[in-house]
């Protein structure tokens, strides 16, 4: 459905998106993850045909985003960040206008307008002026707009931003419901969101893809980096013996404390918990453990680390 090849966008002297390549298969829900300013919105704007890439190419729904921008837009439902809408129109008028703009005519336009209003739960609001709607309803109207022409692909830029938990759940259920007919690409900050509904996650930072996998695989990979920290006292080649334990990738002595106590960091393989084994080993070798603590980095930790640790690329 989407095939991006070295997609790049440069603004005056700044590279917002730097040669990213990825693909999205039909029927997938793909989460686009990254801190603010990572290039999510820019990428989505390029994919939706709003602005062309500086270099590289993307084929969306079988059309090139640069050459056949109009055809791309016919097959994509795009929801911009913060759902900008015309405040002086009523909900129904707005959706009908958008339906006509997307090429639907007369009776069909009216029918689809009714359908999407039902789907997104804004039928009760159809006579309200958009400027008087709450943020949640505006967001839903914007989402309804993307569904009007039954596009093959939905590109949603932070669809759940600023909504309350009930509304977020509602939108989540809707997206899962759409899965049979539509491919969805959505960007978000909310990681639990991604874990619940996305088939695949693309993590982007400073305009580059940092990770691209299923949420389960990502979580597994991340747990591989889990560590057990020990405060221990005893004799013998501790790190060597610890590394011999099944599921331990590496053991490093961190520092020497007073009275023979030391701290050891044990890096653990995916989905292993060697704490019991460590304790048994310690009993056998007559080591004394006064603290043992396992740290499982969450998706959130990696996200924060990604956002904080990386130095921006040199050209920025």
């Amino acid at each position: 459905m989407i095939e991006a090849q070295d997609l790049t966008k440069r603004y005056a002297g700044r590279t917002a998106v730097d040669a990213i390549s990825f693909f999205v298969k039909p029927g997938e829900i793909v989460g686009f993850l990254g801190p603010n300013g990572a290039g999510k919105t820019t990428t989505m704007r390029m994919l939706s045909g709003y602005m062309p890439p500086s270099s590289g190419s993307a084929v969306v729904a079988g059309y090139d985003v640069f050459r056949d921008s109009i055809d791309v837009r016919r097959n994509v439902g795009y929801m911009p960040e913060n759902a900008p809408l015309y405040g002086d129109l009523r909900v129904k008028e707005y959706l009908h206008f958008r339906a006509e703009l997307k090429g639907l005519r007369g009776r069909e336009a009216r029918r689809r307008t009714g359908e999407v209003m039902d789907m997104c739960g804004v039928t009760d609001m159809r006579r309200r002026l958009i400027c008087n709607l709450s943020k949640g309803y505006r967001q839903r109207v914007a989402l309804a707009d993307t569904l009007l022409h039954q596009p093959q692909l939905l590109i949603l830029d932070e669809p759940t931003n600023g909504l309350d938990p009930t509304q977020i759940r509602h939108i989540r259920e809707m997206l899962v419901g759409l899965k049979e007919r539509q491919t969805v690409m959505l960007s978000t900050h909310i990681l639990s969101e991604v874990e619940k509904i996305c088939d695949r996650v693309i993590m982007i930072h400073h305009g580059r893809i940092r990770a691209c996998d299923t949420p389960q695989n990502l979580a597994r990979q991340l747990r591989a980096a889990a560590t057990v920290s020990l405060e221990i006292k005893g004799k013998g080649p501790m790190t060597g013996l610890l590394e011999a334990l099944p599921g331990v990738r590496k053991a490093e002595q961190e520092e020497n404390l007073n009275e023979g106590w030391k701290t050891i960091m044990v890096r653990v393989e995916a989905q292993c918990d060697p704490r019991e084994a460590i304790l048994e080993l310690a009993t056998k070798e007559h080591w004394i453990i006064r603290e043992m603590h396992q740290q499982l980095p969450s998706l959130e930790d990696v996200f924060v680390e990604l956002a904080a640790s990386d130095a921006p690329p040199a050209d920025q």
Partner: protein
Amino acid sequence: MRIFWVLLKKELRGFFVSPVAYIVIALVMVQTGFSFRAALSILETGAHSQGSIVRWTFDSQWFWLSYFFIFPLVTMRLFSEEKKLGTLETLFTAPVRAWQVVGAKYGAAVIFYCILWLPSLANFGLVEYLTGGAVEMPVGQLQGSYLILLLMGLFNLALGCFASSLTSNQIVAAVISFTGSLMHYLLGIFIIYVGKRVPEVFLDAVGYIASVDHIRAFASGLIDTRPIVYYLSLTLLFLGFTHQVVEFRRWKP
């Protein structure tokens, strides 16, 4: 083309749901009312050896004082508002082309501008009706006057459209549009004051581009094709600029 009509309909509707439209209509009615009343008073004093009621109406300071306020008011929100709200992004991710958007917005402004002048036509009709034809009503001058109003309108609206496409701030758009329109008009008056101190060639050039001479010719019923071509080409030029600015997002380096 269908998309264009959908957009045009929406833009026209946009004019009439905002209070600005009614303020502008009121402004134009007051303005033409004043200048028409002033023309009638000339008729009353009997000093009508020269000219006609049509010429006096359009050759008054009442009229031109407020004329150039119309354009910023009509055009300032066209693109600026959408830029500020971010709806331009929503608009351009639907399958619409830039020329359709520019054309629809400009078209709606032109239609609104034409509607603005209808009440003023009634003034002349009313005098004709009430006096039973006793007041001389030169049809040629009337046609010429309204034609030059239309031509100047086409150009100034295009200029306003362009100004609006440049910025997301409506006030800035209004100031650019107002200054541009007024400078173009005042150029002809300015040259009268500077007079002989500038070279002949320059005077001729200004005489050709300044509105003042065009107004004089058309208001006396002399329909000259040169200003027609001139205003239409300026209109196309500024619409072209507007299109480029709107498309610029696509070509931005």
